[in-house]
């Protein structure tokens, strides 16, 4: 390898990365600022009091926490197993966990429809049992869990990985079995990462749009309601709901962390 010739670039130019990076920062900040300045001109309270908006908010606040709970309940043990065991086929399982992260949400939605849609055996059975898996709150939860679940698994796994295994070994030697050690040592020490993962999962779930559109266009959540109102009334009509969704996300992210 011929090293990059330093003579041409000897003069330190510390501002280059900051300048280049600034372009991206502007692209992130300007829309945010423009949106917030817009909110002054529209009647947010009135927009949110309309019955369709209130129902969308209620649906979102019902589904996203449940999806987050499912993802956490099943995802944290999965993360621990991935961090601490080295079974054959582990890489395959890791691939499966990352899959929903790289699959585009609309494709994820299509996948869910092929699995639990009205005309699949599973979907038909559930419908007969009175629990429709599409165009229902259950469908919303399935879509949200599929898309947002990997976040808590990946983050918690990194958190468990950062816990020195010898702390667990010490607990075992002090008389505690694997489950008690998990509860007393691993879980408290990975707490920060797990909470971060839960927050990310919630943020992704409450804002889920693509997969929800496919699996459960009805009943409306905030994101799907925003789309419907955007079609009908353009950008001005959706500012109140978009602001509400942003507020829910930002409040959860900042208070829990």
């Amino acid at each position, binding site marked *: 390898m011929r090293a990059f010739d330093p003579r041409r670039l000897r003069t330190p130019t510390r501002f280059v990365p900051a300048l280049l990076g600034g372009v991206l920062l502007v692209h992130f900040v300007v829309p945010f600022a423009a949106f917030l300045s817009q909110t002054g001109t529209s009647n947010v309270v009135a927009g949110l009091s309309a019955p369709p908006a209130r129902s969308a908010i209620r649906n979102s606040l019902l589904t996203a926490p449940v999806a987050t709970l499912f993802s956490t309940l099943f995802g944290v043990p999965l993360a621990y197993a991935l961090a601490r065991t080295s079974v054959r086929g582990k890489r395959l399982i890791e691939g499966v966990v990352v899959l929903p992260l790289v699959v585009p949400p609309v494709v994820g939605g299509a996948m869910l429809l092929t699995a639990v849609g009205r005309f699949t055996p599973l979907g038909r059975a559930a419908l007969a049992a009175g629990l429709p898996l599409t165009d229902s709150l259950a469908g919303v939860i399935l879509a949200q869990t599929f898309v947002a679940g990997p976040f808590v698994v990946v983050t918690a796994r990194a958190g468990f990985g950062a816990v*020195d295994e*010898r*702390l667990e*070994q*010490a*607990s*075992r*030697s*002090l*008389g*505690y*079995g694997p489950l*008690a050690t998990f509860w*007393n*040592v691993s879980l*408290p*020490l990975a707490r920060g990462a797990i909470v971060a993962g839960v927050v990310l999962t919630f943020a992704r779930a409450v804002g889920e749009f693509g997969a929800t559109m496919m699996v459960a266009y009805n009943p409306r959540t905030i994101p799907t309601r925003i789309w419907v109102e955007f079609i009908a009334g353009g950008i001005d009509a959706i500012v109140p709901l978009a602001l509400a969704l942003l507020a829910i996300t930002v409040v959860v992210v900042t208070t829990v962390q």
Partner: protein
Amino acid sequence: MTLEVSGLTHRYGSKTAVEDVSFSLADGEIVGLLGPSGCGKTTIVQAIAGHLRPAAGRIWLRGEDVTRQPPERRRVSVVFQEPTLYPHMTVGENVAYGLEAREIERSRIDELVETHLELISLASRRDAYPAELSGGQKRRVELARALAPEPDVLLLDEPLSALDRSLREELRRAIGHIQRETGVTTLFVTHDQADAMALADRLVVMNEGAIAGVDTPRALYGSPPTPFVASFLGRSNAVEATVVEPEPLVLAVGEQTLTLPEARSDRPAGASVSCHVRPADLTLAESDGTDTAPTLSGAVSHVTDRGSRYDVSVTLPTDETVVVERQAEPPPLGTTVTVRVPAAKVTRFGTDTAGK
């Protein structure tokens, strides 16, 4: 025997980590498990603690075969090289942790925590969190936590290796003191021969996964069973020689002869032997005196000033170099000197074992 390791063998993939290792610890004994990095010490610790299931061999604790028992069923406490205090518990909670796993009532736990914090002179820091402690204090709390449940065996896995010299010596003294106070059977694992020799009643010296010698520090230092032990326990000069007379022993080192009047050799005349002698046991005589001690002549080839002493390298006519420790001003480079070799301090190895 409180702890007995018998025929322990383990491999990682195709690489043998330990091969047929057996040793035992009597009640209340402190034994040093000593060897260079990668000699298999950690594998043995993990097997005794129960975090690793050995490929072959047995671990006995107080007469019970615990080889297949999980760690929580053994009464073995471990202190690792890196601190493993729980950051989310106070000092007191850390020490109480191992007690709460057993059927002990709360008031008795409190008492035991108090006693063990006093043992390590940290009773006043009971409510502190580990992050508030100094490195040495953390180590002492780890010791208290390991000792509080009164384990059958305490394993100390390189507890001093990550520390500075002064802290290291302070903790070495503290460990010695605590071990004498509590009488806990202790296996002290280290790669540092000074730590091992200062603390241990007996040493188990390991090399490349196998035991190279087991005895008291003094016996291993004075009469090492193998050249590896000789050089690992302290600096050692090796000189190749040939047996001229087996009894009384006369050795030829190149053109020179060494007569060791009180020694005899199992090996016949003509056999090659490797002679080991420590730099501190050699002295310089400016010329052949009337002294009866055996001597070798050579030329001063290098002098290192170590502040407290000089290391004088003397190159023999055979091109071998021996180092002589000397307090006084060393002779100038190139001077021909006579090295006095005290017969009792020479250890001989047949060349067949020299490669061991």
